[in-house]
């Protein structure tokens, strides 16, 4: 594994990351090994975020670099690296605010979660369809507007009614969505930031190992 790559990823040095990937590809290093080094760097980013050495902008930047790296490595390689499980993700119906959702998408993808991003203003039927198709470990519903909490609740109720909740966890997040609101909508976990979702996937994977 390339320590240069993982260190550059942790330091958010995009130029070195991309140059090192090109060098490793030139020398025939398998893509999964390259992604593994990137993920090691991302784990350090997550640790620094939890220790308040890094802030949201550094999380966003790390995800941006990972996205750029993914372009060099190809979708198949990054999908194959989604070893922690699958998340179906979207903002709830009638809410188009997607900064939080996009941070979650990028951060989770860069930590080894395969993310199926349904976009914004997603009706419950679309979540159900994606759950049936992808059999995810979790669904992530993002909601910034208090006026849409009812839609989150209705969406979760539809997932329940369709018999899709067994073995599936519902993660929710968004500025005003606190623990009380999480109970109101019927979620399993309220994620105040993206790293809480990462930790949930890691804990789940460790328990299954």
């Amino acid at each position, binding site marked *: 594994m390339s320590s240069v790559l993982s260190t550059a990823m942790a330091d958010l040095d995009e130029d070195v990351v991309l140059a090192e990937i090109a060098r490793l590809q030139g020398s025939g290093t398998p893509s999964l090994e390259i992604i593994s080094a990137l993920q090691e760097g991302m784990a350090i980013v997550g640790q620094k975020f939890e220790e308040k050495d890094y802030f949201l*902008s550094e999380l966003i930047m790390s995800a941006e670099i990972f996205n750029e790296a993914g372009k060099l490595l190809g979708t198949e390689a990054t999908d194959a690296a989604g070893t922690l499980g699958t998340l179906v993700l979207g903002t709830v119906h009638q809410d188009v605010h997607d900064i939080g959702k996009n*941070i979650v998408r990028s951060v989770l993808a860069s930590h080894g979660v395969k993310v199926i991003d349904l976009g914004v203003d997603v009706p419950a039927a679309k979540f159900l369809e994606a759950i049936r198709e992808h059999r995810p470990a979790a669904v992530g519903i993002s909601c910034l507007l208090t006026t849409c*909490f009812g839609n989150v609740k209705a969406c979760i109720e539809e997932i329940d009614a369709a018999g899709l909740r067994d073995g599936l966890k519902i993660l929710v997040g968004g500025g005003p969505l606190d623990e009380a*609101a999480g109970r109101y909508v019927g979620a399993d976990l309220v994620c105040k930031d993206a790293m809480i979702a990462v930790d949930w996937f890691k804990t789940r994977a460790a328990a299954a190992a």
Partner: protein
Amino acid sequence: MTTPTNPGQAYGQRLARMKAAVALEKPDRTPVISWSDAFCANHVGAPMSRFSSDLIYSGEVTARSFELLPGFDAAEMAVAEPDWVAAVFLSKMKIAGRDLPEGTPWMVDEQERIAESDYDVIAERGWFGFFVPWAQQNLGITVPSYIQQSIAARIEGTKRLAAIGVPTYTVAFGGGTPLEALSAGRTMSRFVRDLHRIPDRVQAAMDATHPQMIGVVKQAIRESPVKPFSVFVGLARSSPEFFGPKLWDRFVWPYLKSMVEAIIEEGVVANLHFDSCWDRELPRLREFPKGSCVFACDHATDIRLAKKILGDRMCIKGDVPSAMLSYGTPDEVRAYCKALIADMGDGFILSPACTMPANAKLENVMAMLEAVEA
């Protein structure tokens, strides 16, 4: 506390209460105010589509809502201007009747609307040299005529509120940091990457923008027919929650500091409407003169920490949680407000965290108003 039935006397009593809180003196009771926004339309049964798109009408509806809730000491804003709010953030707003079903509150549709090269255009032409043609071309907004309409609507809305004895707490003239608009126009992800890859070009655009914005704010204060009680400095993405000290010290603090100082120089209170968590940088805000600012927080900042650090320098305003107002019970709201009032003491204004949620329950709003009357 009995509110006088005469609107002029009621206005004076409410204004005195707010002034005492801002001056860190003891008011007759804790002032309570609200930026009620889309809640007003739901409250009085007005169509959200018209409320969102007709400036004068939004002022009428706002005044009707406050007339029905006489416990409030002020309306934070006199009118709702969603399209303009979006425009100054280089974005488009989705609004009911045009982009959303009737009854839905407006929401910003954040897309990548400016390119990396636009930093250089702003640096060369200044903010208005860029923004005026950009808004016309991309949003169909003719800036000078819009500003005229906006000023007229604000004046009328403020007069309408005053006629029922309600002061208008603040007015927005563009006070903020350049980071807010640029990060929205680029999208947050692109903007963060720009800060890492091309920081000097971003800063050049900010440096060309900011003096012009300060000039506009100072001129607007001087030309106001009535001196505003406070001038709005609205920040969210500039929060220390987004940026570590190195980036924050370079791309936020110098602009924030000079804007607030400019407002204070004009003899007006700076309304620091700071969303997201500001815990880390609260000590910096002590640099502003005593009694010159109000720190308004949205429940992400620890309001009791803010009191501890800033309480002897500035009034604190906040922070009844949006979710509680929309989905909690009156007992929960009353208990939250009473605890807050007891802990915050003088130099405190009770208000919703950020704006009043559009779907706040009326009984919860009433509970908030009752809490100050103990």
